[in-house]
């Protein structure tokens, strides 16, 4: 393997190693028991890298908007 190719392969290897480790840790993290059986909600929550409080704030804001829209 040419030296440049070897260096590029190691750089990509470094990236992929951390990617694999991160993916593995993410898969192993347990979900709160309260989300058991709530597949669609869990999938939706997994799409956003935010704490619980931001999801709660969004739900409360949407509920407020719904009440205001009804007035």
């Amino acid at each position, binding site marked *: 393997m040419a030296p440049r190719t070897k260096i590029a392969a190691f750089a990509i290897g*470094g990236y992929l190693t951390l990617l694999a480790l991160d993916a593995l840790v993410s898969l192993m993290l347990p979900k*709160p028991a309260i989300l058991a059986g709530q597949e669609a909600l869990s999938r939706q929550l997994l799409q956003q890298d935010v704490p*619980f409080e931001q999801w709660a704030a969004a*739900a409360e804001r949407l509920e407020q908007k719904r009440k205001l*829209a*009804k007035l």
Partner: protein
Amino acid sequence: MNWSVERIPLHWRAFLAGACVYLLYPFAHAPAWLWQSLGQTEAESAAALAPVLSFHSKYGDSALPALNAQLELNKLRDYEQRLIAENADFADQDRDENWAEATEFMIAHVTQNVSANTLRIYHSECRNNLCRIEIAAPDGLTAEFRAQVLKLAATLKTGDLEFHDLKEGNDRLMLELKSDKRLKYGYFAERKLQPAELEIWREQVKTWLQEQK
């Protein structure tokens, strides 16, 4: 024996560089709430998730796109609030050239014509939504001088500049005025504030609200 990065073989340095790139742009990172739940009891997680679970049980899966859209809108609003806080002080602001130039011209006009040259202006400068006027005050903030400065501030208020702050220097006063114009941000901040999906998110929320009527 001194340690240096060159003691690490080149290919291992490349490996570390690749790993660092991943740390900068993580691709498969677990969301924050999953890490958060690790440090919480089940009861604490349930309490933190209660508004979401209540919302979901009330409106079902069909409300999830609207919930996600509202979350994105909240994130944008929080980001703009952070930018506003970062631009709260005159020293922190970049210059919005068009507005600053026009406002400086207006200030020069007002101070020369309306205050009838009773105040000596050392310097006036506008930036993003704040203007600072340095006024000569050799005798300090006397009652008469204060009245003149307030008169100037009141006149500038008609030009969309509200009083913001008044600081006393050695032989001068710094009068800061604030406009309620929207702050102008850099290219990347503006792009982040106006993503291509913004209209879609607004529409998703609007559609869901209409369905609930």
